[in-house]
């Protein structure tokens, strides 16, 4: 069986297209590369959607935490604390079992017990909390001079926020936010190890990598393949975020532009 056939059979296996049975023995390198790569579709799916949807909630949460309304501020602070203070792994488990028990109450919750929706919601809330904290920090450090200048130009309310506060906040938060995005993509590998079942063995990259490692009892092939894919993914994320960073900083004089850090801090 040539490698092209393997790609045709397993290239989209993780979303249920192609050969139904996974290879059982005599694994070729090609099979491992193709299947793990096919699993990466799920990582990208979870990461991208959670990041995009989480972005809006994060802005709301950051504004909430900075709000002068006590209840709103408390609520946002608690939201951030709960999701940043507990392990994502436990959050996945908790959410899965919660959806499972809600399922017996109403069939509406049926899709929530599947990874594509349930895990996405957890990731969405989780990344919103982490980015919310980042945005909050950036919001606090928007230079007062910028806001005073905005006042002087007659900006007020929504326009002031849209044109002045928000872009500055994003600009300041962007390096840390890039880091968060990288970690979010890494966190997507936890999904299929935390209760959410991989229906018909449609899993993510790590799911297939550990499948091969279990079957061959040789971790030295599948995990480095996975590592290669993820390093590539990380580089792409850094590249895309770097482009946005350049756009956010385009009005600044060349010398004072915040250089995009290509050595993001390791921790979220």
């Amino acid at each position, binding site marked *: 069986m040539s490698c092209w056939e393997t790609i045709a059979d397993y290239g989209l296996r993780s979303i249920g297209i192609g050969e139904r049975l996974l290879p059982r023995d005599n694994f070729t390198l090609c099979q491992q590369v193709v299947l793990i790569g096919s699993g990466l579709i799920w990582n990208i799916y979870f990461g991208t959607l959670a990041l995009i949807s989480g972005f809006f909630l994060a802005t709301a949460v950051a504004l909430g935490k900075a709000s002068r309304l006590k209840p709103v501020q408390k609520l946002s602070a608690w939201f951030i604390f709960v999701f940043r203070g507990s*392990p994502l792994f436990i959050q996945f488990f*908790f959410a899965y*079992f919660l959806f499972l028990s809600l399922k017996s109450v109403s069939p509406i919750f049926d899709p929530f017990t599947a990874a594509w929706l349930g895990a996405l919601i957890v990731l969405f809330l989780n990344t919103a909390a982490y980015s919310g904290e980042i945005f909050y920090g950036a919001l606090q450090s928007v230079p007062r001079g910028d806001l005073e200048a905005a006042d002087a130009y007659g900006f007020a309310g929504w326009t002031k926020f849209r044109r002045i506060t928000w872009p500055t906040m994003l600009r300041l938060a962007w390096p840390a936010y890039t880091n968060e995005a990288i970690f979010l993509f890494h966190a997507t590998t936890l999904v299929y190890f935390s209760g959410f079942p991989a229906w018909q063995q449609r899993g993510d990259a790590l799911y297939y990598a550990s499948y091969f490692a279990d079957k061959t009892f040789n971790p*030295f092939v599948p995990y480095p393949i996975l590592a290669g894919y*993820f390093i590539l993914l990380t580089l792409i994320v850094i590249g895309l975020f770097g482009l946005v960073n350049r756009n956010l900083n385009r009005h600044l004089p060349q010398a004072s532009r915040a250089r995009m850090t290509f050595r993001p801090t390791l921790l979220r």
Partner: protein
Amino acid sequence: MASFCSDPSTLSGLSWLLCYLTTGKHVALYWSVGTVLLLLAITAPAALAFGFGGATAARSRFLPLQWLGRGYIAVVRGVPDIAFFLFFVIALDQFFEWARHKVKCPDWDQPIRQGSDFVVCPEAKLPLGNAAQWVHETYGFMLAVLTFAIVFGAFAANVLYGAMRAVPHPQLETAEAYGMSPRQTFWRILVPQMWVYALPGLSNLWMVLIKATPLLFLLGIEDIVYWARELGGAKTARFTDYPHGDWRVWYFLALLIFYLAFTRVSEIVLDRIMGRLTHGQATLAGDAQRKAV
């Protein structure tokens, strides 16, 4: 276990709950909290040691060592940590067995990898086939600790590497001017001064380490996640004196609260330590402290 628990079917309400929460398996759950704390207690210093080694290697002037250190730091940045956990547990186990095999059975002529099997001679097995159950468990736990130490060592190496570069350079130049050798400069000037710069990163690392402890479950240790799944699952009267429905959601809620409390307490303690350390330092935070008094 209280004496009135002898016949659970007659109990109800609070006393039922009390008896239920003190069954043997629940006691095992409470002990597994100890496992988590033990893991943290061993891993934190071990990871710090690995990190120190990694950071020192990364700024070494001997090129291969420098590449080794930088590679160690760089690789964890791009790859999900859970992949490392899954990888190292098998890889370390096989490495140990392979090394023992080479030493103990030099005249073994079959290949070690036979298809999908990893075959070493019986004397090289770890732990030995006839070892007691607790030896197996301890070995598993030690592998997990080593894995955690390697992965978090890389994180710590990154933090310490940054901290070493944050020490003001004139300090090192002054040391040189006083005639200290590079070794003396490193140990007497650089290392004592770097901790203040490293502390924010290290406390962040501690938080991440706490939040990584549930991953022990994936390494095959009977930790709190294991017991929460085990105990929370629906039980019928046939197998237990305390039948109940699917309570896993409650068990995981308890775990969630446990971790939140743990993080909160750590946060408070670390804030205090940081306050102590910044006292009298020529930094923004130190100035703020002085003004507050």
